[in-house]
């Protein structure tokens, strides 16, 4: 009997698949290329280094990979944008981005946004607004506390990242907010 466990369980992905892949905060940028696929059995090249891998998605987002006999377990969590992933390995967690022309453009734009990041106060996690100390038009100094957010028995203060004028206040007391939501914009 042939080795059925290697048999195709997904449609093959194109032979020409080739992507630039980055790991944020690690300064790693690699060229990943699919060389061959036969069912679960893949050959990939990462910056020229060849990998023969048996890859199976065993639960949604949970992958079992066998590489040279070693059994790896990875979990992939799609990010808030397509082509962005959080990947959990046994030791660490990586933020991974698949880069193509389109995402290069959007990353370039986001680069611009990053520069203005200290002009926005963004909630890093869901919570509830306890107190807003800013009104539009108000002059603020870097370090001034502008909003207090409560989540899970803890209160956190959010301060102005720069001197400036409050342009917009997007939250009010008792609002429930999402992680990533912009609360205040300073000009």
């Amino acid at each position, binding site marked *: 009997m042939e080795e059925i466990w290697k048999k195709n369980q*997904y449609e093959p992905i194109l032979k020409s*698949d080739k992507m630039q892949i980055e790991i944020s905060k690690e300064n790693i940028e690699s060229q990943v290329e699919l060389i061959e696929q036969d069912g679960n059995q893949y050959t990939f090249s990462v910056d020229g280094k060849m990998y023969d891998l048996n890859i199976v998605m065993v639960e949604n987002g949970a992958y079992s990979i066998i590489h040279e006999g070693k059994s790896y377990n990875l*979990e992939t969590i*799609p990010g808030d944008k397509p082509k962005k992933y959080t990947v959990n390995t046994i030791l660490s967690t990586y933020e991974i981005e698949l880069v193509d022309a389109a995402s290069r453009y959007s990353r370039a734009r986001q680069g611009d946004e990053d520069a203005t990041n200290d002009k926005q106060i963004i909630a*890093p996690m869901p919570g509830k607004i306890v107190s807003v100390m800013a009104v539009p038009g108000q002059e603020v100094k870097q370090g001034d506390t502008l909003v207090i957010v409560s989540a899970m028995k803890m209160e956190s203060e959010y301060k102005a990242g720069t001197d400036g004028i409050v342009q917009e206040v997007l939250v009010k007391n008792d609002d429930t907010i999402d992680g990533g939501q912009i609360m205040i914009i300073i000009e």
Partner: protein
Amino acid sequence: MIKKVLVANRGEIAVRVMRSCREMGIHSVAVFSDADRSSMHVRYANEAYHIGPSPSTESYLDQNKIIEVAKKTGADAIHPGYGFLSENATFSQRCKDEGIIFIGPDKEVIATMGDKITARETMIKSGVPVVPGTNTDLNTDELALKTVAEIGLPVMLKASAGGGGKGMRLVKDEKDILSSLRSAKSEALASFGDGTVYVEKFIANPHHIEFQILADQHGNVIHLCERECSVQRRHQKVVEETPSPLMTEKIRQEMGEYAVAAAKSVNYVGAGTIEFLVDNDLNYYFLEMNTRLQVEHPITERVIGIDLVKEQIRVAQGEKLSMKQEDVVQKGHAIECRIYAEDPDNNFMPSPGVIKHLTEPLGLGVRQDGYVYEGFEIPIYYDPMISKLIVWGNNRDEAIQRMRRALYEYKITGIKTSIKFLEKIMETPDFISGKYDTGFIEKNDTFLFEKRKCDSDCLDISMIVAMVDYQKRLKNTLNQDVSSNGESGWKKFGKKTSMNRF
């Protein structure tokens, strides 16, 4: 006989209490806030009633609503769990007045132990060692200066009504005594409406060791040995174990007797905990008494072989304790890790959210007390604890190895958790050798917060798998199979991946 218990709590402790109720054939009644309709305690209970909006002040702390549900459902008793109303003297009395058994001590006991000066006085009268200090309000500057001089610096100024670190000031320098006193008093007044402040000797990086006690209504009091709770961050326990690596049989017996004396001095009934500060020379001082079940009670259950919730219920319905002091024998070693929804790499910031995927540790010597499930969203309103992982081993080494194994198996995606941080604790030499105190995390922070990295193969494979996943999702989206039998794709991948046709 208690036939129906209302559990005035949520999360893992509500489920834990209901489990014991179910084993005793007692019906359980859940109460829930807006945020908790899908919570496990609602699903687990025999009955469930909505009691109000998400903030706990309007639901889990609303005595009227809880009493109303208890009366409507004919519950004989209320179990308060820990936190919320568990140490509320008024609520204890309120239950009594309404003819409902409060599974916990009487109003008087809670009140006595809730006021720190009264508790200190009571302990001193019963001969239990307390931290050197005074029991009087430092109401004049002269008294304050004189008292501090007698005790010797450093000292801790403490609000008698205090809690949660409020109204506390550490004084290391003579020149700071009066300014610290003034700010402690004003903070205490603002926080508790009571400006009474007293002074204690400050003990640097002590051990935090507590004794579990059990007392019935017939005057029988026993202790169930100690728990070592010195692994703390921001005064929050993270890891607990029993026996304490510091403990000797002689000191255990002494402290245990004091713990029993402390409970007897207030005619305590039920399960409670006497907390001590212990220095490296094994000098110990009464710190406070918790008049309720503790989060970390399972490690005691495991080495002693007892179900503390069942004991609470039996005591509450007038039964005598099922054990005598001489029956209390610790077997092996137990460790508990608290799993929090938080980000250890970002100052332990809470990380609420939806549990996307959950793999729980199982097998020999592993107990898990949790309440979340796949698809559950951890609410932002309550404590970020997801679950407690408890292991047992024949000895401390085996318990540590088993905890490492269990943490390795534990996988939660969708939110950040303390699991990897706890794995690091289990690998820290000071923890492995058992030589640690409440300064543990600070002392070992370089090791504990060091980022671990995969080797280069593992990194490359991570990128490859992200690419495979992306392609697969892309394809799924294009070929989305809107099948009419309504299976709608969920878990279908399971079928696809594991079904090999030949």
